[in-house]
């Protein structure tokens, strides 16, 4: 089996396509003019809660309201 063709630089650095694509999208959003920029950033806001499990029981959850690009 021949080794695959030259991989893109981000794949060689261990990044997946989704990460690459999301970084590109965030960079474009950050360069928008004002009303569009605010809309785009509010649209892409993510709220999630993570809880680690130990001994079959969830520990206290961490709530995160990340702004994009973080």
């Amino acid at each position, binding site marked *: 089996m021949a080794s695959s063709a030259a991989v893109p630089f*981000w794949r060689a*650095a261990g990044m997946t396509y989704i990460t690459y*694509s999301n970084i*590109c999208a965030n*960079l*474009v*959003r950050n360069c928008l003019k004002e009303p569009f920029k605010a809309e785009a950033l509010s649209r892409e806001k993510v709220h999630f809660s993570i809880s680690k499990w130990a001994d079959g029981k969830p520990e206290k959850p961490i709530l995160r309201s990340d702004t994009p690009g973080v």
Partner: protein
Amino acid sequence: MLRQASRLISRSVTAASSKSVTARAFSTELPSTIDSTFVESWKKVAPNMDPPRTPSSFMKPRPSTASSIPTKLTVNFVLPYASELSGKEVDMVIIPATTGQMGVLPGHVPTIAELKPGIMSVHEGTDIKKYFVSSGFAFLHANSVADIIAVEAVPLENIDASQVQKGLVEFTQKLASASTDLEKAEAQIGVEVHSAMNAALSG
């Protein structure tokens, strides 16, 4: 009894499929060739069970390719949060593929193209609409339908040139000072995206 089934399937499918796969390479119909030798061997081994269905029997037939090249290209341009163009009939689209700007006309060879940050333009008569696309994919089908998906696509007027310049300078600096592979990759992505936006605004 079922342990034999998988051996049976693989044995007779490989024997028959080497012929049938090449025969139906460009077929637009569903393979109605339910492999009869397999069905017979199955009935001998498991007469009370229906032969298993194969994935291809669940598939809808491919939309047929028109015999003459259509005059218009149908474009579906979608973003995760909106459908920019849906079934729009246009004359041509130029997409920023990783292999270069690709012009797509009706009757284009079926292609899957990965897009790089760049300008996508939709040509309808004398009307040209341009979008800056952050990245995505374009699927060009044999029946002159183009499905273009992007994560972010903005009209060029919405991009702020001064922020693009600032970003370009910032990422060029980051690229020079980056240490780990990952940092270098991220800085490189920043440089590429901002240069593409720059070129789009000035070109």
